[in-house]
């Protein structure tokens, strides 16, 4: 069952299949995909999903893509092996991406596609099958039943998932859904006589304890916040960050915490800062437009040395842009946004799994260094469901902020912004006798009293920025601060950030298989950048590629500025994530030009 090699592609390193489902919003396309993804996951396979949501509130075209493999999969897949078209529009939109020799599955009540040489076509009368059991809405479940048979997935797992996912909607409806599942399965069993080339080869018999999870980046991030001890969240609804708020709305009250749906993003960050000032571990989440609005308060949090975590689930801009499309366009905003200079830390999770650890790290760093920490996630990470390893709880420690104690101060007058070697000053909390002070957005002396002396401003500016140096020294010692992958002595390097890591990893696997000496260097922390390590990585390279989902090449600009080096930029700004093939082709092109130059 190795994947038939596309001539334009290097051989895939994993046995895997990419399936896309297209249809009209309201037909249950996403449910179909999510249920199918879970069936595959529960059957022991690895799953990576992708979806597009129409901009329309109701109606419009919906697409769900799922890549399934027997080994972990790290990107969405380069070409489609299977297309399931619920209607003509789905066929028109996606058929060109179906690879030669792929499988088209279609609802033959809705469309009649032309026969294409080499293409396997399975007609499923989804609409009439659903109508046959008087359950028109259930045609997506009929489709699931048929796909379970075509993929050779275990029927008992399928039943269990449908019960688990759809059982909450009542016993009658569940019975209907199970009937639809069976109808679809039986139809495929009796009518699809050709040997399906994508029997996924599910392991037979009892499987051992499975430690994997199936979840989205936003779910992983919200669970990470809970693991980190978050007790306060305020946020304003925005796509694609809202489901973090919805998740925490259900869970935070259970830990005695508070969740406030704020009136706007300034209120959201202001509330989080107020709560943190009074001792809570506080967070807000938004997307680019919301982070724009928060920037004044971001500087204020840094100036007042208030710990706070801000999640930016990036979406394509500028302005309102494309709210349901992905992007890595907010790096400058996160790292540099604001008037004049102030320290902040920025962490960019590399994967759905890493969203959990990024949340834990962000809380601990915010508390320890008393400053805002921004988590840069993105649309693709936020909502795609995939299989991930279970969280390693040994990586979860709750670092507490340095609290002031009356006895430890040496004298009676508490100095909130005491100038220290590390830059970190002991913090009092309202209620502590003798610890009162005013958190001050004006430049201030050690006690917090406003002051504009040139020497004072210099001293305090340096004190605040010293915390970043101290943080950099600590982060450097962390085993997970940088993700490195590939050849130990590379000639071409990929420097990137965030969710680009997944496709970069698969691109490197293909390049290594082709004999290219390539490696990746992905700092999880973009502020402060690990300059010494990055410098050491790039020094021996013949060429550096920076793939980014933005127009300008924001990380490329930063690196070029700091290291005065030539960068081979790979910028994609279509609103979609990279495929491994796109990065692979860039590696191959750069490699042939800079490492094995063709003689002139």
């Amino acid at each position, binding site marked *: 069952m190795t994947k038939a090699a596309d001539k334009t592609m290097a051989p895939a390193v994993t046995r895997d299949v990419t399936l896309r489902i297209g249809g009209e919003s309201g037909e249950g396309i996403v449910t179909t995909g999510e249920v199918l993804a*879970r069936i595959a996951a529960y059957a*022991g396979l690895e799953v990576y999903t992708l979806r597009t949501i129409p901009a329309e509130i109701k109606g419009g075209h919906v697409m769900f893509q799922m890549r399934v493999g027997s080994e972990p999969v790290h990107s969405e897949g380069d070409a489609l092996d299977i297309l399931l078209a619920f209607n003509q529009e789905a066929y028109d939109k996606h058929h060109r991406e179906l690879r030669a020799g792929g499988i088209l599955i279609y609802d033959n009540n809705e469309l009649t596609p032309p026969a294409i040489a080499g293409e396997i076509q399975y007609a499923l009368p989804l609409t009439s099958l659903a109508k046959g059991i008087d359950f028109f809405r259930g045609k997506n479940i009929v489709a699931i039943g048929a796909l379970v048979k075509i993929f050779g997935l275990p029927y008992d797992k399928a039943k269990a998932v449908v019960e688990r996912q759809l059982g909450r909607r009542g016993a009658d409806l569940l019975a209907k859904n199970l009937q639809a599942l069976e109808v679809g399965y039986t139809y495929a069993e009796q009518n699809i006589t050709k040997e399906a080339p994508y029997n996924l080869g599910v392991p037979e018999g009892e499987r051992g304890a*499975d430690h*994997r*999870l*199936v*979840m989205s980046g936003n*779910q992983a991030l919200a*669970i990470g916040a*809970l*693991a980190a001890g978050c*007790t*306060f969240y*305020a946020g304003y609804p925005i796509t694609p960050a809202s489901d973090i708020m919805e998740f925490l709305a259900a*869970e935070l*009250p*259970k830990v*005695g915490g*508070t969740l*406030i749906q*704020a*009136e*706007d993003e*300034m*209120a*959201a960050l*202001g*509330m*989080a800062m*107020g*709560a*943190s*000032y*009074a*001792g*809570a571990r*506080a967070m807000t989440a938004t997307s680019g437009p919301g982070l724009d609005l928060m920037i*004044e*308060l971001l500087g*204020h949090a840094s100036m007042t040395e208030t710990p706070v975590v801000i999640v930016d689930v990036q979406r394509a801009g500028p302005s309102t842009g494309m709210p349901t499309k992905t992007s890595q366009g907010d790096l400058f905003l996160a790292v540099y946004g604001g008037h004049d200079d102030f320290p902040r830390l920025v962490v960019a999770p590399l994967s759905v799994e890493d969203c959990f650890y990024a949340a834990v790290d962000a809380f601990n760093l915010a508390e320890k260094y008393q400053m805002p920490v921004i988590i840069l996630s993105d649309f693709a990470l936020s909502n795609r469901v995939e*299989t991930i390893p*279970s*969280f390693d709880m040994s990586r979860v420690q709750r670092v507490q902020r340095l609290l002031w104690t009356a006895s430890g101060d040496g004298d009676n007058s508490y100095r909130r912004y005491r100038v220290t070697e590390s830059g970190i000053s002991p913090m009092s*909390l*309202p*209620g*502590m*006798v*003798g*610890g*009162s*002070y*005013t*958190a*001050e*957005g004006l430049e201030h002396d050690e*006690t*917090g*009293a*406003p002051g504009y002396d040139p020497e004072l401003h210099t001293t305090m500016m340096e004190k605040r920025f010293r915390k970043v140096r101290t943080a950099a020294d600590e982060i450097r010692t962390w085993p997970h601060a940088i993700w490195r992958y590939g050849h130990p002595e590379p000639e071409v390097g990929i420097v990137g950030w965030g969710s680009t890591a997944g496709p970069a990893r698969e691109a490197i696997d293909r390049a290594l298989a082709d004999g290219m000496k390539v490696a990746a260097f992905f700092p999880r922390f973009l502020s402060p950048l690990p300059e010494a390590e990055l410098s050491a990585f790039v020094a021996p390279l013949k060429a550096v590629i920076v793939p980014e989902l933005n127009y300008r090449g924001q990380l490329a600009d930063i690196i070029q500025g700091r290291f005065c080096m030539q960068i081979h930029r790979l910028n994609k700004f279509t609103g979609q994530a990279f495929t491994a093939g796109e990065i692979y082709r860039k590696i191959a092109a750069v490699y042939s030009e800079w490492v094995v130059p063709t003689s002139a």
Partner: protein
Amino acid sequence: MPDRVVHEPTTKVYTASDYKSNVKPIWCPGCGDFGVLSSFYKALADLGIPPEQAVIASGIGCSGRFPAFVEAYGFHGVHGRALPLATGIKMANPSLYVCAVGGDGDAFSIGGGHVPHAARRNIDITYIVMDNQIYGLTKGQPSPTSPLGMEKKASPYGSIEAPLNPILMALAYNASFVARGFSAKPKEVVELMKMALLHKGFAFLQIISPCVTFNDTYEHFKQITLPLPADHDVTDRSRAMTLALDEQNMYLGVFYKVERPSYVTSVRAVRSKASGGAQFDLEKIIARYRT
């Protein structure tokens, strides 16, 4: 954490000077805000609130400097964001007495979007708005409460935007405590502040606080202010609105005061509903996602 407790003055007797910080006010001599500040010291002392139990959040403007002059916890915020800060502080530690202070620009212009929501939530804080009907710190531009026709550098032909009516707005937003004082009448202001601080819910207190430098209105307000009718029923919202609409007389005192569950109370109810008394278990949440 427990809800704020009323401290018995008998345990320790506080005087106004206990709340005076080492930072010297930067306001102009004669500024109405001095009257508000000394009334605030007195109100805290009368209620016996320990300095460490009081928190004052502010925004920007002359009023924004207020927290630094009080020996208590303070948070000098950015322009217009005193209410969000105060809301977060109160929810993180409900045992505190939390105040937000602002001027008419901070409260009704740049921060105007927060007032209705603080009122809707009935967040248990006191909001003191020092209204001088002018932007003083930026040297005299018309504000949202400036009268029509006011001639200033930014309105050389007279202001053409009608003033807001803060009391009417607070009543429309259904704040559970709405009152007005005048800084030239500090004894009344002290009493209003004490009522506001003890009110369980969002207490909105407008204090007329003239700007002697750019908009000296002391004489004007001395002439038009008078106490609310003695028979005014503070639970009668529509009567309160009618009194707030009076343009000839500017009434001082408590317009409206009702008891409603505060945000702290409501959030606590949500917590018990959510947990059902069960111990929080992160592993249970993660287990929902296991294959």
